[in-house]
Every structure is written in C-alpha cells, then in structure tokens.
C-alpha cells in the first residue's frame, strides 16, 4: 500500500472523529467504562488471590495419631504421608512437644498436675492451597490416624468468593463490551451516513471495498484505543494510590506490585482495538454494503 494511501486513510478517519465529536466521545467513554470495570474486577481478584496464598501458606493439616501407635508405626506413617502427591512437608509433633507448646500458649500454671491429654500428631504442609481438602481426605484413610483437622470451610469459602468475583466481573465486562460495540457501530454509522456521497463516488470511480473500508475501520480502532488508554490511565493512578495507602496503613497486607500489571495494560489496548474494529465492521457490513 502506498504511503499516500495510508495518509489518506488516517486523514479521513480523523476528519470523521472530529466531525462526530459527541458520538466519538460517547464511544470512547463506553470503551473506557467497560475496561475500567473489567480492570477493577481483575485487580480485585488477582490481589485477593495473592493475599489468600499468603494466608493459606499458613494453613496446614494436623493429623492426630492413635495412642497405640509405636515408634516404628509412626516412622512408617511418616514415610507414607510424605509420599502423598501434593504434600510439601511432614513434621512430627510428639505428645510432649505438643503439651509444651500448649503450655506456652495458655500458661504453665493451668495445666499443673494434669495428665498430658494431647496425642502425638503430624503437621502437614501442602504445595497448592487448593488441595488442602483432597490431601486431608487421603491422610484420614491411613491406619493409625485418629483425626484430621485443617481450616476446613474457610479456605473453600474464600476460593468460592474469588470465583464469583471473577464471574461477575466477566459478566459485567461482557455487557459493557457489547454496549461499547453498539455505540461505536452507531458512531461509524453516522460517519458512513455523512460520507455516503463520497462512498458512492468512490465506488463508481473504481475503489476497492478495502479502500472504502479502511478509514472506517481505523476510526473504530482509534476510538477503541483511546478508550482503553483512558481506562489504563485511570486504573493505573487509582491502583498506585491504593497500593501506597495499604502499604502505609495496613503493613501486614501486601498487594501485588503494579509492575506485574504491565502485561495486562497491553492486553487492554488489544481488547480496546478489538472492540473498535468489531464495532466498525458491524456498521460497514450493514450500512456500507461493500
């Protein structure tokens, strides 16, 4: 394609963008809102995940052993548990160690003169927090295990919440993306209408379909790109502010550093472009008839 032709396409697109400035503004606004919503949910769920990983790395399984189990049995069981897929670490806590730990927590005096009621136990750490329940179930099946405990319910609940946050975010995003496509296609339709004379003349002079299409496609893509750039800017500033605020006021919570979101920003530009291209091809097909 000639440079002159490319210049011509861009000149035409930008002329239209300015001519339909209110519709252009509405299109950009729609794309930006769609992506800001998508981005907010994305940031929320990624951070939720991140914080939860932190919490969960502390979630471990405690397997209480039957008193009848002797030293050999304990050592064999230790080997079996270590061999379970997904298990990271198995630590044996003897009756004695357990009571010492307990004494430290509640105070020595209280337990003076009482027989040690605590059993021997294993503390098991897992690789993937999602697998806590599965591993616990396997552990429970071994002979010599009396009872298995872990932060049952809490973990599952948190994961369920993340799951819903993602789904809702995605659903809202799809609705907004559809609205954006609709608004952009209307903007392009205005352009097609404003330029119908020209298009008609172009056609009988011998313009190819693609020559007629390009300016409209560029117009849509530019609208999408401007919208997504605004979304990236707004989200970036807001997240930076949130990050600093949390760091200062809630030092125990660490958010995902913003550098990790640079790839997402590129993805957003891509989505904006797609929304724009899709919106304009919609109009080109229906109203341009080429």
């Amino acid at each position, binding site marked *: *394609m*000639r440079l*002159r*032709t490319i210049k*011509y396409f861009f000149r035409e697109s930008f002329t239209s963008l300015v001519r339909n400035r209110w519709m252009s503004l509405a299109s950009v606004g729609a794309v930006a809102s769609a992506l800001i919503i998508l981005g907010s949910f994305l940031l929320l769920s990624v951070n939720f995940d991140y914080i939860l990983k932190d919490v969960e790395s502390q979630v471990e399984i405690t397997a209480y052993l039957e008193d009848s189990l002797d030293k050999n049995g304990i050592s064999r069981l230790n080997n079996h548990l270590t061999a379970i897929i997904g298990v990271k670490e198995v630590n044996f806590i003897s009756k004695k160690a357990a009571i010492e730990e307990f004494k430290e927590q509640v105070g020595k005096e209280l337990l003076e003169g009482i027989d040690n009621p605590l059993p021997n136990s294993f503390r098991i750490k897992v690789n993937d927090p999602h697998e806590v329940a599965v591993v616990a179930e396997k552990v429970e099946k071994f002979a010599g295990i009396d009872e298995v405990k872990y932060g049952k319910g809490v973990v599952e609940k948190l994961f369920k919440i993340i799951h819903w946050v993602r789904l809702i975010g995605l659903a809202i995003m799809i609705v907004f993306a559809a609205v954006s496509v609709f608004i952009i296609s209307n903007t392009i339709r205005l352009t097609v209408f404003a330029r119908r*004379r*020209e298009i*008609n*003349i*172009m*056609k*009988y*002079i*011998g*313009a*190819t*379909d693609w*020559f007629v299409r390009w300016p409209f496609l560029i117009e849509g893509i530019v609208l999408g790109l401007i919208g997504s750039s605004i979304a990236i800017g707004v989200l970036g500033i807001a997240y930076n502010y949130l990050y600093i605020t949390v760091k200062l006021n809630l030092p125990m919570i660490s958010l995902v550093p913003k550098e990790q979101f640079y790839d997402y920003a590129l993805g957003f530009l891509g989505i904006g472009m797609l929304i724009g291209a899709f919106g304009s091809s919609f109009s080109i097909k229906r109203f341009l008839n080429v």
Partner: protein
Amino acid sequence: MIELFGVTKMYPGGQVALKDINLRISKGEFVFIVGPSGAGKSTLVKLLFREELPTRGQIFFSGRNINRLRHREVPYLRRRIGIVFQDFRLLPEKTVYENISFAMEVIEASSREIRKRVPQVLDRVGLSHKVKAKPSELSGGEQQRVALARALVNNPDILIADEPTGNLDPDTSWDIMTQLDDINKRGTTVVVASHARELIDCMKKRVIQLEKGSLVRDEERGVYSNET
C-alpha cells in the same frame, strides 16, 4: 468493445426497464442513447458499469462477460470506464483540484502521477484557472467540466455520460457536447444517454433509441427522432 446479447432488466417489483436488447458498440465510437423519460436509458448505463446486473442476457466488455465478474473484480472494470452524471456528483468540501486528484487517490496512483496528470486534464477541459475553487463557486457548466476531467483523469477506455446536459442551459450544453466530441476524437469511446433533441440532431452521431425498454432504432449519423 461493448456487446449486449438479449439483455432484459426487470426491477424487483416487476418493472421491466429493458427488453431483449442486442447492441454492439465498437472502440472509438460516439453513441447517443435517446428516448423519453422512463425509456430505460439510465438502466442501460447502470448495466454497463455493473451498478445493476441484467435479469437475462449477457454483457461483454472487451470480450469479458461482466455478469460473471467476481465482486472484487468490479472495481477494476470501473477503472476502465469514466462516468458522468446529470447532477455532477462532486464533493462540495473539496476544491476542483482535490475532486480530481481524489479519483486518482482512490485507485492508488502515486503522488508524482497525480501531480502530473491532474493539471493536464484540467487544462483539457479549460479549468486551469479554477483549481482552488470549490464546486459551489462554479457555474453548472464548469462543474460538469470538473466531472468530465475527473472521469478522464484515469485514462478510461470508454466514457459514459447519463444526461450530462440535463441541468444545463443550451449554450453550456453545447459546450459540454463539444468537449465530449473532442474527447472522442482523441480516441475514447463515448456513450451519452440524453434527450437533448437539438444537440443530438446537430452532432450527427450514431443514435440508439429506446422506447419503453425496447430498442426501436439504431442509426448511424442519426437524429433524435425520425418522426416528422
């Protein structure tokens, strides 16, 4: 150059605009298509540049059956045809120069070709002094000359004009006809749909007469109507 075999055009709704037309136009000819309003002149013109497809029959352009052209081949057919309409169809916000260079941009000519060619055609239609004017600043005759220049700028094999003088006064009409004759003398085939009786009678060209969609007369050096 152009051949029509048994061409019939029926519009959706059943209106028969052309009935079984057989016609042959050779390279270098000047042909008038005449007939009262509604006779089918515009329809015939539209068939030639494939704005419409015939309901029945075949149309050949330089030996190619244009019914069979694929959609993406149509632009390349049209690049060989210059078209002029009664209402000029210029772009009001572009200057005379831009209206013509636009036609070359559309077919992706180079800047150099455009700079060379546009002044040439403007000179040919005698509008070199109006390059920067907008169409609204021109008379009807001048606007039609811009349209002529635009139709010629890409060196078409054939120039087709649908009522080119329909909106013009007699003097200006005569000027446009002279221009068309001049274009034809330089080797371009010219087809003009018109019902400008006096002009046609003066020109002494081939006349094809349509009447309610049928070809009723085809005469070399004819006049508008042979009824007396």
